[in-house]
């Protein structure tokens, strides 16, 4: 097994262990920090799999993610650990996830093996077309941007709309209270 594969598997194992810790710790703050570690591991994997764009974006998004979550978790008390555990519910969830793991793992073995994607096969498909003609068609040396903003720009417009809607939604949810309090004074005391 070559060292690249070993490194990839080690990073994947790191992410899985981090997510297990994030799932099972009692303290919310450590949980948030664990999710930050998972994102950092994903950024390193991005770098090794030939996606520097994704690595840049993932690192910064991860920092913002952890900043937002810590801002929320800090100074807010949490009493979840006092509630009793529902063993039957957790057990049935684990049972079904195990079934899903077996079926999904079986399905994964029917895919193209790792490292030999569709574009390297007999019928290369559209990706090979993009890689061959991208520079002549668009003039962009970064093929990711060529796909994102020229070949599939309509898709990107839709995704920009999704970001816009989610941000407007967050504004609306957070804002109404402030305006209400400004207008009617001490409404929240009642």
């Amino acid at each position, binding site marked *: 097994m070559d060292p690249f594969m070993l490194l990839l598997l080690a990073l994947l194992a790191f992410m899985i262990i981090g997510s297990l810790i994030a799932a099972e710790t009692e303290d919310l703050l450590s949980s948030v920090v664990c999710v930050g570690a998972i994102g950092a591991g994903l950024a390193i994997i991005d770098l090794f799999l030939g996606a*520097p764009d994704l690595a840049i974006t993932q690192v910064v998004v991860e920092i913002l993610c952890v900043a*937002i979550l810590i801002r929320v978790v800090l100074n807010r008390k949490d009493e979840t650990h006092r509630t009793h555990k529902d063993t039957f519910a957790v057990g049935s969830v684990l049972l079904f996830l195990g079934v899903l793991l077996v079926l999904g793992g079986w399905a994964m073995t029917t895919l193209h093996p790792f490292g030999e994607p569709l574009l390297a096969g007999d019928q290369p498909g559209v990706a090979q077309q993009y890689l061959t003609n991208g520079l002549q068609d668009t003039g962009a040396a970064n093929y990711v941007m060529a796909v994102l903003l020229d070949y599939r720009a309509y898709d990107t*417009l839709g995704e920009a709309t999704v*970001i816009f809607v989610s941000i407007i939604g967050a504004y609306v949810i957070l804002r109404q209270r*402030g305006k209400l309090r400004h207008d009617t004074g001490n409404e929240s005391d009642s």
Partner: protein
Amino acid sequence: MTQGMSLIVKTITRLVTSFITLFGIYIVLYGHVSPGGGFAGGVILSAGMILLLLAFGREQTMKIISHSALVIWDSAGALAFLTVAVVGYLAGDFFINFLSTGEPYRLASAGTIPLSNMAIGAKVGAGLFGVFLALAIFRPGRHQEEE
């Protein structure tokens, strides 16, 4: 988060923020020749502004960047991206690359891709910082559930 952090943090932030913003603008502008692009650059821009907000507190920051200005930048970015698409429609097809592709590996190449990158950068940067600002402004009300 009323007065911001200590003097050391404020001084370092004063030194560093302009460089972060410059790097974000670089990432946006050179998105079509090197790794980066509108999404990554916009997130970096908003991260620089969030550093400002965390270090100086929200009173100081809102003097520099107000909430309405952020909303305007956000909407303007979305509109500019749509404008690129519609002008391409007038030139023949929706989202067609109507400018000349130019010489590869140069800044002035790739037709409409740098314009779209700038629009997306403004939109993502302003939008994400606006959300963070809204979360920071938001104060949990005085009422804590009397049990």
